[in-house]
């Protein structure tokens, strides 16, 4: 019964994203924060209606249990969703542009996490002798881009190499209604253990 209420709070706080990896400390913090706001709102609404306040213990217990249950619900939903979205042909087929090390890392990471964004094909503008990466076929070069997008029903495209093509790829994504993604490392943005 309370689920729609929590969902409303989380959506309005922009803390709700079902495609995000749910089992993370950051997500737990989002949920805990949403719960605090939710409990405060509930107590305030109760006070306005009944002119009395909850016991503090009840509020603390309600907040703690809500946090735990909502968090575990998200994790379970995440698992179910990842299986469902990858059963049969993926719901979000992802086209990877590039065969460099960053592309390999991305594909392996998406496959390992059973991400809803399932790589289904790879194209490499420079040409490569590789036939596949982590089981995902390298279909050729960018000259067959539009054919691959149509045949594989691509919904998302991630560019991992050859920055000179960014506008051409972005333009194609806009034209065909796909989501364009760019790997930050292509812009020299590396997230782990950087030192300046």
């Amino acid at each position, binding site marked *: 019964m309370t689920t729609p209420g929590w969902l409303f709070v989380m959506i309005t706080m922009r803390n709700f994203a079902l495609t995000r990896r749910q089992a993370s400390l950051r997500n737990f913090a989002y949920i805990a924060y949403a719960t605090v706001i939710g409990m405060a709102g509930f107590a305030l609404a109760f006070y306005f209606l009944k002119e009395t306040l909850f016991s503090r213990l009840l509020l603390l217990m309600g907040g703690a249990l809500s946090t735990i249950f909502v968090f575990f619900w998200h994790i379970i939903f995440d698992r179910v969703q990842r299986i469902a979205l990858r059963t049969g042909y993926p719901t979000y087929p992802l086209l990877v542009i590039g065969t460099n090390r960053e592309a390999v890392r991305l594909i392996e990471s998406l496959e390992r996490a059973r991400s809803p964004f399932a790589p289904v094909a790879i194209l490499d503008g420079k040409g490569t002798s590789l036939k596949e990466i982590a089981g995902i076929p390298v279909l050729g070069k960018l000259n067959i881009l539009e054919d691959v997008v149509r045949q594989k029903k691509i919904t998302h495209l991630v560019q991992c190499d050859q*920055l000179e093509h960014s506008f051409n790829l972005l333009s194609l994504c806009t034209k065909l209604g796909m989501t364009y993604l760019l790997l930050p490392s292509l812009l020299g943005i590396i997230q782990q253990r950087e030192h300046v």
Partner: protein
Amino acid sequence: MKAFILAGGFATRLWPLTEKRAKPLLPLAGKPLLSHLVEKIPEGIPITVSTNQVFAKDFEKWKAVSDKREAIRILIEDAGHEGEKLGALGAVAKWVREEKIEEEVLLLAGDNYIGFSLAEFLKAYEGNPLLAAYDIRDREKAKQLGTVIAELKTKNQKLETCHVTAFEEKPKNPRSTLVSTGCFLLPASVLPALISFAREKPDNIGGIFEHFLAMGTPVDCKAFVEPWFDIGSFEAYLEATKALVGENVLGAPTDDGNVFEGSVVLGKGSKVLKSTLKNVVLFDNCTIDDCILENCILDNGCTLKGVDLTGKMLRENTTLIRD
């Protein structure tokens, strides 16, 4: 002697510039790459340009418009896409077989720019298969090319004409940075071996030299120092433009508050207003207004206003306008 220019590829690495044109017809420093090559071939040598069905009309148009030589023939391969093409060596073998060629063949890759003189190259011919080589001085680049391991014919000789001891196509660990330039001279005596090798490996043009060496046929090499470019990528295309154009503007620059630096090529009908361009190639009918562009290549009909771009290649008719 007959010249045979290989122009039957689909130039997939240079997408999107080659989406609607063959790579040998890409403009380089103001004229098609193929025109640069044809101009180097000494007069009197009949030329055959081998291409595919898709680009056949473009080559015919090129021949009609830009070529002053009469002895050029366009040979059309029966290939409509990448998977159907005969392969470089396959195309040569078919031509030799069908035309009953019984003389030396000057074989040239149509997507290479050569700065050296072909007349000088022909002078080095001593009856053995001969290839033109260039020291690229970069082992990483050599990994993508055919490398030549050569030894001097006589002591105290400069590395110009030498014996080839090994030829390695795209080696993982190159033993040499001397690379093949896609320019070969084949005596009539090796053509039967070429036909038979092409049946097994129709796309392995470098492999024929490994085959000659394995057969015990001596292979010679003439090394050049003049610029050579394999126009196979965005970077190579820009590099070749910089080398050929220098610190100049090719085309018709207008004095509309523009700043041009490095090598700038303006195609026919292209307009530039209040912009800064550094190492930029504009194909035909582009309009650039209030932009700062560096190391960019823009295909025909692009319109840019108020944008700053570095290191971009834009597809035909791209429009980027920031108000």
